[in-house]
C-alpha cells in the first residue's frame, strides 16, 4: 500500500496542476463527513494501521516539529526553527511558545526528549527507524533541545523532524506496552488541530476541532470519517450525499464520472507511488544487459498510462525519479523502440531459432512467469499489457496472478534481500516515501543489503555502489543533486528494473460542502493543512 510522505519537494514544483482553488472560508464549516476504506484502529502512534491514511489521520491530532507546506517542503511548526552544526551531527531546535496539549497541560522541551527516548525504547517501526540515528537528546531550556546524531544524515529533517509525532510525556510515561494499551478520549492527547472523540471500530471516527490550536481554530468544526469496504462504497456514498469527501484516491475510471456529477469536484495531483516491472537480474537471461535494455525499449509506457490509468498518471522515467522531483535528472530520456529492442536481442544472439515466435536462450525458450498481485486490478492489467508488449520482441511472459503476500514473499523473502529471491518477472511498486526522499534510490540499487535494503532485483554494480555511498553522507545540496543525477543516468542505462508509471492522486469532494483542500505533492489532500484557515498554513 501507500505510505505517508516524509520528505519534501522543492519549492519550484507546484502542487497539483489542477490546483484546488484556495478560498478563504468566512465562517468555519460545522461538520464534514468523509469516506475512508479500512479501519485504522485507535489512531495513536502505536496503533494506527497504515501509512496512508493512517499516519495522515494520526497527524490531525499530533504535531511534529516541522510541517510540510503545500509544496512539500518542511517548514517550522512546533519548532520555530532549528540549526545544524557544520559536521551535520547536532541539531539545535527551538520550540514555539504557548502550545498546550489538548488536555490543557503545557507542551515543553521535555515532551520532545521524552518522545525520542520513548520511540527508541519501544519499537514503532516507522518512528524508531526515523530516530535510529539519534545518539542523544538534551533539554537546554523549556523551549530548546539539542539532538545529537551518530552520523551525518542530510535526510534527518524530512524523515524525522517532519514525520515523528510528538507525544505527551505526562500521558505516555506510564504506558509500558504501548501497542496493547487501550487508548480512549482522555488518553488520546495531542497538540494537533483535532481531537479524536469517538471511535466506533470498523465504522467511524469523529474528530472535533481543537479551538485553541496554536495555529488558530480549524476551518471545520467536526470531522466525521465513515468507513466503507472499498472505493466503490465511497463513490456511492459521495453520490448519495452520505459523505462530502473521499479520503482515498479514486480510481481513474471514476474520475470523469464523478467530476461530472453535480457538486462534486476531483482534486488531482502527483502521488509518488510507483508501478514497476522487476526481473531477477541474477538469473539468466536477465543478467544480460541487452535483454534488460530490450525489455525497457519494448514497453510503451504512454500506452499503459492511457489504457490502464485513462491518462491519470505520469509516464515512468527510465531513471526512476519522478519528473516532479527536485532531484530529477532531465537529461535521462525514456524511449520506446520495438525495432531497436529486437535488434538488440538479435545482436546478443537471442534469436527465435524454431520459429514459434519466442526467442531462445541457451536452448530454452524465453518464456517467463510474470507475477502480479491478485488483489491489485491495475497491476494485473499492467502485467497483461506488459505481456502483450513483450510478445512483440519475442519474449513470452506468462502472467500469473498470485496472492499479494505470496508475491511479496517470493520477490522479497522475509523482507530481507540478503535471503535471495524466487521469481522471474514481477509487477511491483513502492510507496510514496521511497520516492519522496531522493536518497532512497540508493536502497533500490546498492548491493550491500544494509544500504540496498529494497534491492529486490539483486542488482550489483560497482559504480552504483560508489555513488550510493557518497549520496548518503553528502551534506551539500548541489553536489548531492549532481550525484543523484548520475545515479539516475546509470539506472536508465543499466536497467535494474523498468519504471512503468507514477499514478496520480484523485480525491473527490463536494465543493459546496467544503472547498478548502490543500493538496500536498506526494501526499494528497488528507492532511491537517486542508482543515486550517489559509492564513494558518505555512
Amino acid at each position, binding site marked *: 500500500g501507500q505510505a505517508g510522505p516524509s520528505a519534501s519537494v522543492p519549492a519550484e514544483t507546484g502542487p497539483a496542476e489542477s490546483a484546488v482553488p484556495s478560498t478563504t472560508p468566512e465562517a468555519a464549516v460545522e461538520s464534514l463527513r468523509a469516506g475512508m476504506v479500512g479501519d485504522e484502529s485507535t489512531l495513536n502512534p502505536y496503533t494506527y494501521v497504515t501509512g496512508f491514511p493512517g499516519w495522515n489521520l494520526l497527524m490531525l491530532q499530533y504535531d511534529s516539529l516541522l510541517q510540510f507546506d503545500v509544496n512539500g517542503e518542511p517548514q517550522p511548526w512546533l519548532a520555530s526553527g532549528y540549526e545544524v552544526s557544520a559536521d551535520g551531527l547536532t541539531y539545535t531546535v527551538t520550540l514555539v511558545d504557548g502550545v498546550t496539549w489538548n488536555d490543557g497541560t503545557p507542551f515543553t522541551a521535555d515532551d520532545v526528549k521524552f518522545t525520542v527516548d520513548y520511540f527508541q525504547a519501544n519499537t514503532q517501526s516507522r518512528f524508531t527507524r526515523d530516530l535510529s540515528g539519534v545518539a542523544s537528546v538534551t533539554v537546554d531550556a523549556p523551549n530548546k533541545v539539542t539532538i545529537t546524531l551518530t552520523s551525518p544524515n542530510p535526510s534527518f529533517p524530512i524523515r524525522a523532524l517532519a514525520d515523528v509525532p510528538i507525544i505527551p510525556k505526562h500521558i505516555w510515561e506510564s504506558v509500558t506496552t504501548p501497542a496493547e494499551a487501550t487508548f480512549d478520549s482522555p488518553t488520546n492527547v495531542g497538540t494537533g488541530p483535532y481531537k479524536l472523540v469517538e471511535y466506533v471500530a470498523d465504522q467511524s471516527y469523529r474528530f472535533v476541532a481543537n479551538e485553541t490550536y496554536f495555529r488558530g481554530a480549524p476551518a471545520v468544526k467536526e470531522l466525521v470519517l465513515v468507513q466503507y469496504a472499498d472505493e466503490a462504497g465511497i463513490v456511492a456514498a459521495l453520490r448519495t450525499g452520505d459523505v462530502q469527501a473521499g479520503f482515498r484516491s479514486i480510481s481513474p*475510471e471514476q474520475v470523469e464520472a464523478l467530476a461530472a456529477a453535480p457538486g462534486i469536484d476531483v482534486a488531482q495531483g502527483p502521488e509518488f507511488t510507483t508501478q514497476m516491472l522487476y526481473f531477477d537480474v541474477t538469473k539468466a537471461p536477465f543478467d544480460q544487459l541487452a535483454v534488460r535494455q530490450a525489455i525497457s525499449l519494448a514497453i510503451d509506457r504512454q500506452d499503459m498510462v492511457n*489504457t490502464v490509468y485513462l491518462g491519470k498518471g505520469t509516464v515512468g522515467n527510465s531513471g526512476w525519479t519522478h519528473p516532479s522531483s527536485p532531484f530529477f535528472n532531465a537529461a535521462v530520456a525514456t524511449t520506446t523502440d520495438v525495432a531497436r529492442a529486437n535488434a538488440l536481442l538479435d545482436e546478443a544472439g537471442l534469436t527465435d531459432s524454431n520459429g514459434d515466435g519466442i526467442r531462445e536462450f541457451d536452448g530454452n525458450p524465453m518464456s517467463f512467469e510474470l507475477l502480479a498481485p491478485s488483489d491489485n*486490478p491495475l497491476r*494485473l492489467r499492467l502485467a497483461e499489457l506488459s505481456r502483450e508488449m513483450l510478445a512483440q520482441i519475442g519474449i513470452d511472459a506468462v502472467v500469473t*496472478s498470485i*496472492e499479494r503476500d505470496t508475491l511479496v514473499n517470493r520477490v522479497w523473502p522475509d523482507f530481507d534481500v540478503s535471503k535471495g529471491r524466487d521469481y522471474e518477472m514481477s509487477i511491483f511498486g513502492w510507496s510514496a516515501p521511497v520516492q519522496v526522499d531522493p536518497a532512497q534510490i540508493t536502497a533500490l540499487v546498492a548491493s550491500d543489503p544494509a544500504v540496498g535494503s529494497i534491492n529486490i532485483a539483486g542488482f550489483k554494480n560497482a559504480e552504483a555502489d560508489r555513488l550510493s555511498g557518497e549520496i548518503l553522507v553528502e551534506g551539500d545540496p548541489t553536489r548531492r543533486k549532481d550525484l543523484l543525477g548520475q545515479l539516475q543516468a546509470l539506472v536508465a542505462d543499466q536497467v535494474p528494473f523498468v519504471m512503468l508509471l507514477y499514478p496520480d492522486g484523485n480525491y473527490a469532494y463536494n465543493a459546496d460542502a467544503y472547498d478548502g483542500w490543500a493538496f500536498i505533492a506526494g501526499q494528497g489532500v488528507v492532511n491537517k493543512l486542508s482543515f486550517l484557515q489559509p492564513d494558518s498554513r505555512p
Partner: protein
Amino acid sequence: MTAGGVSLPELPEPAVRLESTPIGAPAAARGRLTIDGTTVIGLVGVVLVGGLILTAILAPFLAPYDPRERVGIPFQRPSALYPLGTNDIGQDLLSELIYGARVSLTVGIVAATVALIIGTTVGVLAGFYRRIVGSVLMRFVDILLIIPFLPLLIVLAAYLGRSLLNTILIIGVLIWAATARVIRSQVLSLTQRDYIRAARALGASDARIIGRHILPRVLLLGISQFVQATSGAILLEASLSFLGLGDPLQKSWGSILYWAQVRGAFLTDAWLWWVLPPGLLIGAAALGFALMGFALEQRINPQLRSGR
C-alpha cells in the same frame, strides 16, 4: 450464500429407491400434471445447458473478437462495433462473455466430476464397510459439513493460489461431502437388499458386489447429485472470482464481474451491459443444471412422485 448451490434439502435419511414399481403392487400414485411439469422443467434445463455448452464450443465462431485482444478504447458504451461495449482495457465484452462460458462451464463440470468421484468413492466405501471404515469416513464428512464453508473456501483459495486447476480442485474437494452422504445412505439400503445377499451366497467377492451390483445402482443417483453439484460449482466459481480469489486473468463470467466491480462498473450506466449479462448467464447456467437435477431427482425418488 451460494454454498451448496441449489439446496435441495437433505431430509434425515432420504428414502431413495430405484426399483421399478413391482408389477401388480399398487404403484405410487402419480399426478399426470406433475409428470408433465417435471418433464418440462427438465427440458428447460437441458435446453439452457445445451445452449450454453454449444456457445462454449462454438466460441471462436460466435465471438466477434479475440477476447484477449485490446480492440478498442476502454470503457466504451455498446455500439454496432462492440455490441456490449468494451471493458476497462478495451477488450470486447461480448467476446469475453462468449469465451467465458468455456471457463465457467468447465469449472462447474470438472469440479462436480471431482466431487462425484470423491463423493461416490467415499459414499460407497462408507456404506459398504459400515463399521470401522464407514464411521471414520462419515465422521470426516460430518466435520467437513460442519466447518464453515465459505471461510474454509477462502482460506484454501488463498493457500493454494490462483489458477483454474486450483479453483476446480478447491470447489471439488469441498462439495463432495453432500454427495458422499446421499450415496452412502443409498448403499446402506442396497447392502440390505436380498440380491446382494444372494450374490454373497453365490460366493461373490466384495469387489464383484460393489462393481456389479452397487455401483450401477448408485450411478443414477450420482448423476443427479453431479448435475446439482455442477450448478453449485458454477456459483461457487463465480463467487470466488468475484471475491478476487479466483484467477482474475481467466475469462470467466465471475471474473468479468470481478473486473466490473473493481473498475466501478455498477456505479455507472455500465451495469446494464457489463454487470447484468454475466450475472444472468451464471444464473442461467446454474439454473439449467439445477432444473435438470431437479427433474432427475423427481424421477429417481418415488417419494417425490407420490402424494394424492
